[in-house]
């Protein structure tokens, strides 16, 4: 077959539409926002691009740094919890028979097909003071009281509007991002390696730690990055589940564009978020290349 890249007319016939789309709706707006980040407000709707670095300098104020580092820490904790929860799920999917496997996959994917807002409100319904979790605890509390335990009145737990609520929400939303790459890596694993380990006298736990986990490392790395990046940029989850002072970077950006009407600063923050993201991507690529080098020789 002729190489389609070499047939210029065919190449441009197919690539023209996506190229125009990409330029008009991705490159141009990004360039605009990038330009804004070096600008200053000149009136309520006008922005003068003055080439100032002031917006970036503003981002280094302690309260902004705090929001940035909170974002990184919360996203990181959520990512680690995702890893711990997703690994057994991925293992179960890998070793399930074909029918069970597709059901498990469906269960993992199902939340994806549900609106994020609905899922988040569902979570709020579970976790609020009159929610199902507190209700269940109250139920068992009252049973214990009626059995003669002197526990006093049930005080509902404050599960919402704090940092743990954000982490729970982030884990809930981003778990599939972790399960899928892990599953992809584990599913590729040659089963006879596990059998060989057992055959040589290793127990199941030893086999897990010495054979399965090391060989799944590329998948684990991919899962960490793919989960961490959207978790760090999450907007809806921290906005709805967090308290008034539990800001994450996306909410901060939104406030600049809306309430504060400071587009230049919002633009600068957007690009800072993107640079941080790119750094994590670069790290992943670096480790992947290193891993690839080890196995390529």
């Amino acid at each position: 077959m002729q190489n389609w890249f070499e047939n210029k007319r065919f190449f441009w016939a197919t690539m023209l539409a996506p190229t125009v789309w990409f330029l008009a709706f991705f490159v141009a707006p990004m360039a605009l926002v990038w330009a804004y980040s070096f600008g200053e407000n000149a009136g309520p709707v006008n922005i003068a691009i003055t080439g100032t670095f002031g917006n970036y300098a503003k981002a280094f104020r302690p309260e902004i740094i705090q929001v940035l580092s909170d974002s990184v820490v919360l996203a990181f904790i959520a990512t680690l919890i995702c890893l711990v929860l997703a690994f057994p799920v991925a293992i179960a999917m890998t070793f399930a028979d074909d029918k069970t496997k597709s059901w498990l996959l469906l269960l993992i994917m199902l939340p994806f097909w549900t609106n994020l807002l609905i899922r988040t409100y569902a979570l709020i319904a579970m976790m609020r003071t009159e929610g199902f979790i507190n209700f269940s605890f109250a139920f068992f509390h009252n049973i214990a009281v009626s059995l003669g335990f002197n526990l006093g009145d049930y005080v509902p737990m404050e599960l919402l509007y704090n940092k743990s609520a954000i982490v729970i929400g982030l884990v809930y939303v981003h778990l599939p991002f972790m399960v899928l790459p892990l599953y992809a890596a584990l599913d590729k694993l040659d089963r006879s390696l596990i059998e060989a380990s057992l055959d040589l006298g290793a127990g199941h736990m030893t086999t897990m730690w010495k054979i399965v986990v090391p060989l799944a490392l590329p998948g684990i790395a991919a899962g960490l990055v793919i989960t961490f990046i959207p978790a760090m940029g999450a907007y809806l989850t921290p906005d709805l589940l967090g308290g008034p002072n539990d800001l994450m970077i996306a909410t901060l950006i939104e406030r600049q564009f809306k309430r504060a009407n400071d587009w230049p600063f919002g633009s600068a923050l957007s690009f800072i978020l993107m640079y941080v993201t790119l750094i994590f991507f670069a790290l992943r690529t670096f480790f992947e290349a290193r891993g690839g080098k080890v196995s390529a020789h």
Partner: protein
Amino acid sequence: MPDNLASQKKSSVVKDETIIKIENLTKRFGKVAAVDDINLEIKRGEFFALLGPSGCGKTTLLRMIAGFEVPTEGKIFLDGVDVSNIPPNKRPVNTVFQSYAVFPHLSVFDNVAYGLQFDNISKSEQRDRVMAALEDVKLEHLAERKPDQMSGGQRQRVALARALVKRPKVLLLDEPLSALDAKLREAMRFELTELQDRVGVTFIMVTHDQDEALAMACRCAVMDRGRLMQLATPSTLYEFPANKFVADFIGSVNMFEGKLILDEPDKAIVEVEELGGKVFFDHGVLGAEGGQIFVGIRPEKIELIKRTKDMKKPQMEDSPEDCNVFAGVIDNISYLGSESIYEITLDNGRRMQVSRPNLSRWDQEDFTFNDEVWLGFHGDSPVLLQN
């Protein structure tokens, strides 16, 4: 029957003790019996082969011996101990996997040492044993290599060393040569038998390749659809197949349905309609009366004699007149160098295969296409087979 031919055979380490005894072993997957009521005994120090077409249950049987499958019914005894329900990591049995299953993230040394960390021996002894095992498979110079820097043959040696270093009572080999190229495979056959002889461990090999099994094993168990068809030495399998399946699976054979018309202690005659004549046996075939019987003749046991127009039908010197000689025409010739295979169409249209060694450099010129020939064989050549 010459089952004592076993003594002629390769391994000098075979002892007359049973190391593995398999009793009424059955494994069902759903309704299908992959292994169906198998009984067999394997001797200590033997090189044993499980031979059969794909899907015959040989791999399932091997996996039950290794512990990866739990028998549905029946028992496996290893050195007198019932191991049927002991998990693989607690069995003194090790496996060389078909894909070798060398751990890609560990060096050759660490691969071989992997199994020893569970054996409660000192680090220095571990080291010594790993190096000795690597020497056994001639890999001591590659101890620090990673598996992906090695050829398939080298990785197989790692797998061998890794299994043997555990000093198993039985070493299981799953299609050990199937992933190697033809030349290496040939060399590995000798190397494996030589290694087995040296280490004295009982080897059980699964293979679908009859040449491999015949060349390497002391004894072979031929399996079909989960059942044991025959357990014998390679030469017994070839020369005295117990049934139609074995005759057909091991080597090539000309097979005809027939009717027993004479059966005496020292001779027998079978009328074969497909051949349009009678086949004479110089021995009795006791017990074959009644039911469907078949006559099998190996291609190399048939002689070709040039036939001219007015020539009288020749007679084989040890057979009665009109037996074991049939007329045909050469239809096709496969010249294979060391031998030639002739496809011959008999007068009644039935085709037969005859092979003839090219002992002299001119032998292949004796016969050519469309030559009219007589096919003759001696009274000790045909075998009587039942389903």
